[in-house]
């Protein structure tokens, strides 16, 4: 069997680097890891066949340093580079630099990345291709009568947004035509005071939007297929926390329709390799193009579970010039998959980052559980990188089964030594609105109790009993007792944290 590449360098770290290395090893392809000062003992370094140091812990001088990474590839003779997600994965300059160095970049062509990376260009491209975008205007005229006509054409509710804006400043939701003039004035005033520019524009306000995205993959021979959708509506500060496939709201007809839109979007951009077309779905059932993520997504495993396709292997084959391994009509979806992103953030302290040393770790196992992680007991999570440390993925016969498995998996998962989001995820799994599939991107804002770190009252008696025993043992071990061997209490017993030695 001919290998797609004789050696692949993985230009990333953490769980995604491990994920890519696993795919390469299953294909028989030797791998090269790169690492910063903080990552000498990282799991991706340990799993790869070769590892090259590329600089200090700060990512701009290591994982974002194009020169160092290309040097590592040349030094080790890697034929191709997989960028993972984040870091250089959507950087067309990096993709071009790879090509210039004669190294295959496992991802889309730079031109497609550029066309899709610029939101304004992407929106225009999609409109031209007949992919619906959120209806909106350019900068509004001074004349409010003209604006009223534009708003009416879009259809209420509409959203006023500041052209120079961000962070919600100068943003207003207009429910009815009567409200328009005064809210327009407010928005302009706020935009002027915030950005020194009163220019505003209108956009259709999508109510209770759901984040639904379609996975696509294209080969260099003109085939593009879609692999079903994922719903990623459970977000906090625009960070996805829980994803699933299929979406509980998407039926086969809708799936075919948005799948076709996604394929059209990808084709319009000359897209090759794996990518994701993100849509916003309004409460009225309409879908609007948001953007294309021109890379492997964090949440790709849920698609892998329901389709049975290994996306990373498919990416590698396509990058080597092979055809897609299946035509669209052979795609079959089975069951339902969920993913929880475990982050090193403290739910007791408003999700503040909680890097530190993992003292003990137990990963969930058994039927229907997949764990993609980058940590181990003894590993110190660096302060320099993303707080996501692992993904728990479950696959079941239906959504209820996948949720039940996730609840069970989260109960088995143990990460001791640092606070993590596990207790948050566990609460979501038993929340009636989540179980009902009543999702939208404002879900956590609507259910703020989920973000609070209440002590679990079910646990009360267990917790007091356990704490009491631990406390007893601690006091017992610090109490000056006559030593049994007659040598007295030896001094080393008092070094370090007494009674809590490992």
């Amino acid at each position, binding site marked *: 069997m001919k290998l797609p590449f004789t050696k692949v360098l993985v230009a990333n770290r953490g769980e995604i680097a491990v994920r890519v290395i696993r795919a390469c090893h299953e294909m028989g392809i030797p791998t090269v890891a790169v690492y910063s000062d903080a990552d000498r003992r990282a799991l991706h370094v340990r799993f790869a066949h070769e590892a090259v140091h590329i600089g200090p812990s700060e990512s701009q001088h290591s994982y974002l340093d194009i020169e160092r990474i290309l040097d590592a590839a040349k030094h080790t003779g890697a034929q191709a580079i997989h960028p993972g997600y984040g870091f250089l994965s959507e950087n067309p300059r990096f993709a071009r630099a790879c090509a210039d160095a004669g190294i295959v970049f496992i991802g889309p062509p730079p031109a497609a990345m550029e066309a899709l990376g610029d939101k304004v260009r992407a929106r225009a491209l999609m409109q031209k291709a007949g992919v619906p975008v959120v209806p909106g205007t350019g900068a509004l005229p001074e004349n409010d009568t003209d604006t009223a006509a534009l708003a009416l054409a879009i259809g209420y509710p509409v959203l006023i947004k500041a052209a120079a804006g961000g962070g919600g400043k100068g943003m207003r939701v207009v429910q009815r035509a009567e409200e328009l003039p005064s809210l327009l004035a407010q928005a302009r005033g706020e935009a002027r005071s915030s950005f020194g520019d009163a220019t505003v524009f209108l956009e259709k306000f999508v109510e209770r939007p759901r984040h639904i995205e379609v996975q696509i993959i294209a080969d260099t021979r003109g085939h593009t297929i879609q692999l079903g959708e994922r719903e990623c509506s459970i977000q906090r500060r625009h960070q996805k926390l829980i994803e699933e496939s299929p979406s509980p709201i998407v039926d086969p007809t809708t799936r075919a329709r948005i799948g076709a839109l996604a394929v059209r979007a990808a084709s319009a951009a000359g897209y090759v390799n794996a990518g994701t077309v993100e849509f916003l779905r309004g409460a009225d059932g309409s879908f609007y193009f948001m953007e294309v993520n021109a890379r492997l997504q964090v949440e790709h495993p849920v698609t892998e579970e329901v389709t049975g396709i290994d996306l990373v292997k498919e990416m590698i084959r396509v990058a080597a010039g092979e055809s897609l391994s299946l035509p669209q009509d052979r795609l079959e979806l089975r069951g339902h998959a969920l993913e929880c992103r475990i982050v*090193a953030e403290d739910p*007791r*302290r408003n999700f*503040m*980052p*909680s*890097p*530190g040393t993992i*003292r*003990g770790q137990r990963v969930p196992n058994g039927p229907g559980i997949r764990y993609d992680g980058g940590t181990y007991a003894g590993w110190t999570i660096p*302060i*320099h*990188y*993303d*707080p996501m440390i692992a993904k728990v993925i479950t696959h079941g016969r239906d959504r209820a089964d996948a949720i039940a498995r996730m*609840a069970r998996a*989260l*109960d*088995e*998962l*143990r990460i*001791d*030594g640092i*606070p993590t989001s*596990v*207790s948050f*995820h*566990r609460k979501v799994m038993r929340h009636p609105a989540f179980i009902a599939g009543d999702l939208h991107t404002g879900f956590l804002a609507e259910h703020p109790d989920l973000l609070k*770190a*209440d*002590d*679990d*009252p*079910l*646990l*009360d*008696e*267990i*917790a*007091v*009993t*356990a*704490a*009491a*025993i*631990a*406390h*007893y*043992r*601690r*006091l*017992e071990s610090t109490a000056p007792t006559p030593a049994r061997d007659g040598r007295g209490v030896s001094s080393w017993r008092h070094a370090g944290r007494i009674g*809590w*030695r*490992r």
Partner: protein
Amino acid sequence: MKFSARAGSAVHEVVVERDNGHYVVEIDGVRRVVDAQKLEADFYTILDLGDSRSYEVSVEPRGDGYIVRHGAAECEVVVSDPSRRAREAGPVGTGPLTVSASMPGKVVRVLVVAGGTVQAGQGLIVVEAMKMENEIAAPRAGRVKHVAVAAGQTVESGVALVEIE
């Protein structure tokens, strides 16, 4: 051994003794005999010999108490024993106030200088970790006596950053 334990809003009176390899734990007068075996640091398997309940718990010391985790559920238990209560009864809140780092990270900006005055809630230091900036504010008004860190420096959680008097 006697102490009080607060879980959530409830405070419980607890008595713990060892008996024949087991623990006798009395909580608010309800007595249970349990077999607790340590599997790893801070991690136990516990069997209630009365009603047969089995549970795994991790009991991590944090601050004045313990974070107890059972499955994915967690609960903070604050324990006070006589000696601790005695210590706590001592003078507090006098003298200069030290503001510490609430998470490990890198100091990206120092917003005050020694000798300057600050208002309660005013930002003192910005620490960054995991691509998130966290501004550490003055818990009360006062004069900055000492700034212990400089921009670019890496700090551990709990490290003193600024002293206010």
